[in-house]
């Protein structure tokens, strides 16, 4: 049976237009390719 209070927690406020800039800049855009490049660089440095 659905619990209204619990279900409500799953809903999050949508991003408003005034917050768009902050969200854009604060977004973590690191991808696996970045991680790979970092790992390779670290390995090369150790050598």
């Amino acid at each position, binding site marked *: *049976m*659905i619990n*209204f209070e619990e*279900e*409500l927690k*799953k*809903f999050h*406020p*949508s*991003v*408003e*237009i005034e*917050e*768009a800039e902050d*969200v*854009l800049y604060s*977004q973590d*855009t*690191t*991808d*696996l*390719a*970045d991680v*790979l*490049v970092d790992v*390779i660089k670290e390995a090369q440095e150790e050598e």
Partner: protein
Amino acid sequence: MECFNCGCLLTENEFCTNCGADVRVYKKIIFASNRYYNIALERAGVRDLSGAAESLRQCLKLNKNHVEARNLLGLIYYETGEVVSALNEWVMSKNIKPLKNIADDYIEDIRSNPTQLDTLTQAVKKYNQALNYCMQDSVDLAVIQLKKVLSMNSKYLQAHQLLALIYMSQEEWDKAEKEIEKALRIDTSNTLTMRYMKEIDIAITQDEGRSQSKKKSKEEKNAKKYKSGNDTVIQPINNKDSRGLSTILNIIIGVLIGLAIAIFLILPARIQTEVAKVNEQVAEYSELLTQKTADVQEREGQIETLKEQLAQTEEALEAYTGTDGTIAAYEQLLEAASIYMQEEPDVMAVADSLGKIDETYVEQEAPDYFKSVYNELLALIGPEVSDSYYQTGMAEFNVQNYSEAINYFLMAVSFDETDSLALYQLAESYYRNEDLENAVIYYNLVIERFPGKNSAVNSRRRLNTIEQQQ
């Protein structure tokens, strides 16, 4: 595909032909990213938007520079009402690939229609407000707000889901089902939507089951059971007896309902119609009254103006016919002229008419043409009239009626100032009448005006006599 190290275009080899970097793992990551993108495309094609979004997020975790994935994710956000998130994705996409990027068109499309953008962002704000109301247990307000949100943006998935959840909490299953169906039309495989759908189906089934069992038990209670041999026969209720009674009851109820409708619905409606008509008439009359009042006021104004004009006209008329007697002067002048123009004019009558004209008016106020006519007439009749007055004056003088003689001589002098005898006889009449003061004035006038004449000599002599007497 470009090398992560030097940016050179990669070949089928497992290393970069330019810098020699090992690109085996990198290539696998990029292939996996592309695979997720393809899955997302397939899911989006069957409107499994949440599934597609999940795949696209995975794709971007592997390769953040996947422009098509970002554009598609933006489209999915836009389709589910998350306008700002959509714009974020498109802006990032444009940042990665500034030229020949379809995200540019999407952004331009939104920018060129500010009204639509405003409506969509307002919908987002209202949705957040509705969520806040829910947190504060103001569910009714939240419902109102969510309805507004959906009227502004009917594709707002979260709003549909939240509204469905509220209806479910209030056990309004039909309404919840409608909202969920709408949410499903936007996103066919959303987990949350599917779960709510399942819950609603269960609840509706349970409700139907309960109502059916209630009905069944009621029927069973009313049914007659008896045994025929080994069988138990359940005889349904025979409503035959009560059918007639119920028909009558139904008719009575129908009549009562009809009456109630007539009393509570039709009658007030008719009363309202009549009242509306009366109100309309009152409004018409009041409008008419206002119009008439305005007319009366206008007429009063006109009367006032006319009164003023009349007063001015009367004043002007008074000026003409008043104490200065302008009109009278003109009448007298015309009369004099008319008499003079006869074949044998009575010069005394002309003189009489001219004499009635106020001399002050002639000298001070009369226009030039009036003066000209007046003086002309006077010059024409002057000597003759003067002579006539002189003769009469002499007659009076001879009978020693000096005061009368003075009047006639004055008239004679007024009509002909060149008559030295008349002037002398006037002075003489004053002398004989023992008015020495006036006598001296006129004797002096004779001497002054006619110095070479006998009358002047006689006047000088008379003045000497007066001096001796004094």
